[in-house]
């Protein structure tokens, strides 16, 4: 009964951080660490429980349970419920989220408490709520619940990005983050409502759920079920629904053109950035695609768009990262780019690859942000890499951990990022070669981005840690304590070795080496496992992908060729950066970009047009509406009243104080009206 007991306790995974939110909010100021300990205990507990459920799913089976009926009963057309779905995907994500949340809480002790920040109870309360919302999102068993927690994640990121509200920048960045993602969520909400209107349910599936919307959609496409598709062909309508939900995904996962909020969000405290980028807000978007992958797999159009958006974003963001001067900015653009890869994988038919990269990225990106946080503590909150240099000797733990994360990010063998990125590209390539030129185009963009990734990563490491110190703070950095070093060490190891969970190329040669993640995701419950997704992807009634191979190399040959190409590009990018930025006093080199330089520094002017849309254009329309309202509509009202008995003059006379006369007049009028009716109808006869 061990596993069922784990499932009984599973709701506590999200409840514990929620309790820590309440504790920090209500009693944080009286606690010695202002709520940090409560947060660590809670997220630590979540981590243990998550691991327990992961184990239970491994030995037993998946689990779905409705916990609360939000709206139900006999009068209701369809019920709205809250429940949990524990399957290989969600338990894996629960472990990732709670691990990183726990480490971020610990790191915050060093970053926030040791720094003597004010407002710490608020900080830990928001951190707790953030974690709780994300965990609730992850184990949600239906789309509505997922949407609700998705929005709460957005609220918490708003609060945390704007944590330093006394300054001008953070509140503005927080507003932007919420607004841009809200714009995406608008489409998501239409999608949720549309799913209910079409299927009458928004359940994802799982044991005991026979009529999940994913399953019904699948049946509808093969003619085994019929649903209201609003006058469209079923597949067209499902594509529309999928793309509407994708709006929310692109907003949260910062995919082009909704990526602009993310670099600004660096205004928040660095541990928060780590949490947002690695495990919560940004991860939420792509996780949703994986969660309802059975639905997307029905539509080749939706998949192609996901792949294209992902591939383009991967390249687009990587090119912007190459010129950034601030360490967190480089990381911000790398996040956008890496989530592009995950989208590329999911769109390219690589469900396992997408989840794999989501996992490895969570570890190495959390590591990089926390490493950057450590550097920022050392540099007294100066984030400009051109003021750093030579930190390698002063902070070896940070350096080696950061290096491990960087090599993973750059995709250098054998660090974790290499294995997952390689699988992403490989899956897209073979499905592209199987007769989908769109996927090939997306693949090409992803491939080119590998070069830039290698370049900006190595540039960042060199500028930060190598060479001579370029400022006095860099020469004499502030030391960091165990609470910073320990999370870095843990994540440093994870970033290096996490690739072992899916060594696809090794497995191809030595079949004794297991593809752990692959097997893990394939053994999920009916309709929610990788095997089923693979069938959908390859079925002509649905996505209809076929696998091709490169120049007759065969499956294994293509696998190694793909890995070789991407590794070569990563190494080439890294070497170029090494050549340009090595030595004690590197030069900036950006002038060589010529006309491209301002374009890249200004992020392709994406912010400009979006700010213009949000402020310039919209506010202008709003002002116009306001003038119209006051001039025409209200003008008409006043005009009518000035024509009538209650004209301006009389109004003013009434205003002199004899208001009761006026009230009496109206009452009298009504009475007369009533009497007139009465006389007409002969009441008083």
């Amino acid at each position: 009964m061990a596993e069922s007991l784990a499932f009984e306790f599973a709701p506590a995974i999200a409840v514990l951080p929620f309790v820590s939110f309440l504790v920090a909010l209500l009693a944080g100021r009286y606690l010695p660490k202002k709520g940090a300990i409560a947060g660590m205990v809670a997220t630590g507990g979540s981590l243990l429980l998550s691991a327990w459920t992961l184990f239970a799913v491994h030995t037993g089976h998946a689990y779905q349970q409705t916990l609360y009926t939000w709206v139900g009963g006999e009068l209701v057309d369809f019920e709205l419920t809250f429940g949990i779905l524990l399957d290989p995907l969600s338990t894996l994500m629960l472990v990732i989220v709670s691990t990183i949340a726990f480490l971020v809480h610990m790191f915050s002790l060093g970053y926030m408490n040791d720094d003597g920040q004010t407002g710490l109870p608020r900080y830990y309360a928001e951190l707790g709520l953030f974690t709780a919302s994300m965990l609730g999102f992850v184990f949600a068993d239906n789309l509505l619940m997922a949407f609700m927690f998705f929005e709460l994640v957005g609220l918490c990121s708003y609060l945390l990005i704007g944590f330093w509200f006394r300054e001008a920048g953070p509140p503005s960045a927080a507003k932007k983050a919420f607004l841009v993602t809200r714009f995406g969520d608008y489409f998501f909400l239409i999608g949720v409502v549309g799913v209910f209107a079409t299927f009458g349910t928004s359940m994802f599936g799982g044991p005991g759920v026979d009529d999940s919307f994913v399953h019904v959609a699948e049946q509808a496409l093969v003619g085994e079920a019929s649903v209201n598709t609003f006058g469209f062909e079923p597949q067209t309508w499902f594509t529309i629904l999928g793309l509407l939900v994708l709006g929310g995904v692109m907003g949260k996962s910062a995919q082009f053109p909704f990526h602009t909020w993310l670099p600004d969000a660096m205004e928040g405290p660095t541990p928060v950035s780590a949490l947002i980028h690695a495990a919560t807000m940004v991860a939420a978007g792509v996780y949703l695609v994986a969660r309802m992958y059975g639905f997307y797999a029905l539509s080749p159009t939706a998949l192609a768009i996901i792949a294209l958006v992902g591939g383009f974003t991967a390249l687009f963001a990587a090119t912007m990262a190459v010129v950034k001067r601030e360490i967190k900015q480089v990381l911000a653009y790398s996040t956008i780019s890496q989530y592009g890869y995950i989208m590329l994988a999911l769109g390219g038919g690589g469900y396992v690859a997408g989840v794999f990269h989501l996992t490895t990225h969570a570890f190495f990106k959390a590591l990089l942000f926390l490493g950057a946080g450590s550097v920022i503590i050392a540099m007294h909150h100066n984030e400009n890499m051109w003021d750093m240099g030579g930190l390698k000797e002063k902070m070896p733990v940070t350096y080696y951990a950061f290096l491990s994360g960087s090599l993973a990010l750059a995709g250098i063998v054998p660090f974790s990022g290499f294995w997952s990125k390689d699988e992403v590209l490989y899956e897209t390539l073979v499905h592209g070669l199987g007769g989908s030129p769109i996927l090939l185009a997306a693949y090409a963009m992803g491939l080119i981005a590998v070069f830039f990734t290698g370049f900006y990563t190595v540039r960042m490491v060199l500028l930060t840690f190598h060479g001579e110190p370029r400022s006095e703070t860099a020469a004499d950095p502030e030391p960091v304590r165990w609470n910073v070093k320990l999370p870095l060490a843990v994540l440093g190891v994870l970033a290096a070795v996490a690739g072992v969970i899916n060594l696809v190329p090794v497995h191809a040669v030595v079949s004794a080496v297991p593809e752990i993640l692959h097997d893990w995701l394939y053994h999920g419950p009916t309709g929610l496992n990788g095997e089923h997704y693979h069938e959908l992807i390859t079925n002509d009634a649905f996505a209809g992908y076929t696998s091709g191979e490169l120049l007759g190399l065969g499956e294994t040959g293509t696998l190694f060729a793909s890995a070789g190409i991407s590794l070569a590009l990563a190494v080439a990018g890294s070497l170029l950066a090494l050549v340009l930025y090595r030595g004690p006093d590197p030069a900036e080199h950006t002038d060589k970009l010529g006309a491209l330089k301002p374009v890249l520094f200004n992020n392709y002017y994406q912010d400009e047009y979006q700010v213009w849309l949000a402020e310039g254009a919209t506010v202008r329309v709003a002002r116009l509406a306001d003038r119209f309202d006051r001039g025409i509509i209200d003008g008409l009202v006043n005009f009518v009243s000035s024509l009538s008995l209650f004209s301006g003059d009389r109004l003013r006379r009434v205003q002199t104080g004899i208001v009761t006369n006026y009230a009496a007049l109206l009452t009298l009028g009504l009475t007369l009206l009533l009497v007139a009716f009465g006389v007409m109808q002969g009441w008083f006869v």
Partner: protein
Amino acid sequence: MGSLAFARELRRATSCGLPPWGVVRMMLELLIALCLVGAFAVFVLPDEYAPKAAFGISLVPLVLSLYMYLTFDGVGNALLGGDIAFESQYQWLTLGSYDVSWFMGLDGISMPLVVLATLLTTLAILASWTPIDMRQSQFYGLMLFMEASLIGVFGALDFLIWFVFWEAVLVPMYFLIGIWGGARRKYAAIKFFVYTNIASIVMFVGFFGLVFGLGDSISSLALPEIAQALRAGELGSLGAFGPEQLALLAFLAMFVGFAVKVPVVPFHTWLPDAHVEAPTPASVMLAGVLLKMGTYALLRYNFTMLPTIARDLAVPIAALGVLSILYGAMLALAQSDLKRIVAYSSVSSMGYVTLGLVAYTMYGTGGATFQMVSHGLISGLLFACVGVIYNTTHTRMVGDMSGLAEKMPVTAGSFIVGAFAYMGLPLMAGFAAEFFVFVGSFDAHFAYSTVLTALAMFGIVIVAGYLLWSMQRTLFGPFRSETDYDVTTASLHDVAPLLVLLVCIIALGTFPYDLAFERVLDATEPILDTTVAAVGGGS
């Protein structure tokens, strides 16, 4: 076990301890009488005792109404043959061939609104302690008088009684704005009074057109009788108008009459003026309860009595709802006075009610009713927040202050949470209501329902735009105030209403069905059954 079943159980279990049955039946009358007596008592009290006395007095109807809510045992719709809770009917007088009776009672639609009225009155009275510094006894007397009238509006089931209360609400609000308001209070008060009164006359004419058109098939002005006769298709001709024409004209007249009250664009221009000039507590009542009179009446009259016409006119009405949502939100975006922002966003939010009502689906009509309660709480909260800020800074202009969160954390926190509730953040009442409306109207019976609903949803983006913008400018950033007042934390009686409303909003958003939606659905569901309705098809 649902909460309704629980309430009935509770009723049974505690019935031995209840006062005699007759008194319980007269609960509504007791509420109204308490408010009226209280109003009179406060009116003659010296000014310095009035605030606390009024607060204490208002607690009694609040507690009583909560008790009524818990023991509520109504079934179905009061107008369509349901079991009416707290019913009392006494023959009063005869007008020609029509009996007029004192006919009161509640169903799942009116019960939550009565609680909303009593709750917001108590909180508004508390919120008046700081800003109202002259003629207190008159102010609080009028507040209690208004409470009595509001309970009457939601409880009355006879047209004439209802109409008396309907008009009686205007009088205290007129004086509250006209005496305790801002610089242009006289203009705003008169505009409010005249506009809504003309609307009342139009509505009145329309309704009596129906009454006369029904001829001998009704013998009283009791709303249930009229509603059932109309739905049974017993409307005859009146003068030159055939039944269909008469029904259409009456529908239009009543719609316009109530649309002013809601307000539906383009009949909304009295609202921002009234709100801006009104003292904060009056704004709380105006946005929180008075606007709901309009949507309540729309639901009771237009959508319950003439469902066929409402369904025929669904596209233009839904379009007006969407227009209210988007246009109201755009207007809010153009404002820099916090009160004007909240006022225009009320126009926007009430558009969701219109859209939900016209959908004629379980989630649509139920959600619209739920939105009345939800918006009452949320707009009340935001107006109260703006009021607390104004009490301290003496300005409401967005550009005149910044960084208030540092000086008044609880107020700022409430403002933030309230703003997010307004934006429809899940697990708060606004999301539940809006989501119900959207789900209900997405594939409703009328053409373009999908497109119109999708357009309406864009409201959630604009509302985020202007509320986030105003919060960023006023609450965050370095502290700065253009006015020379000492900005300190607000006192307990100022923030207490905010916290109470916050708790209500979150509770209602987290447990919507158990706390209210079940009762609401029970009463709105009979309205949807329009198969028997055929205007003009009867005798």
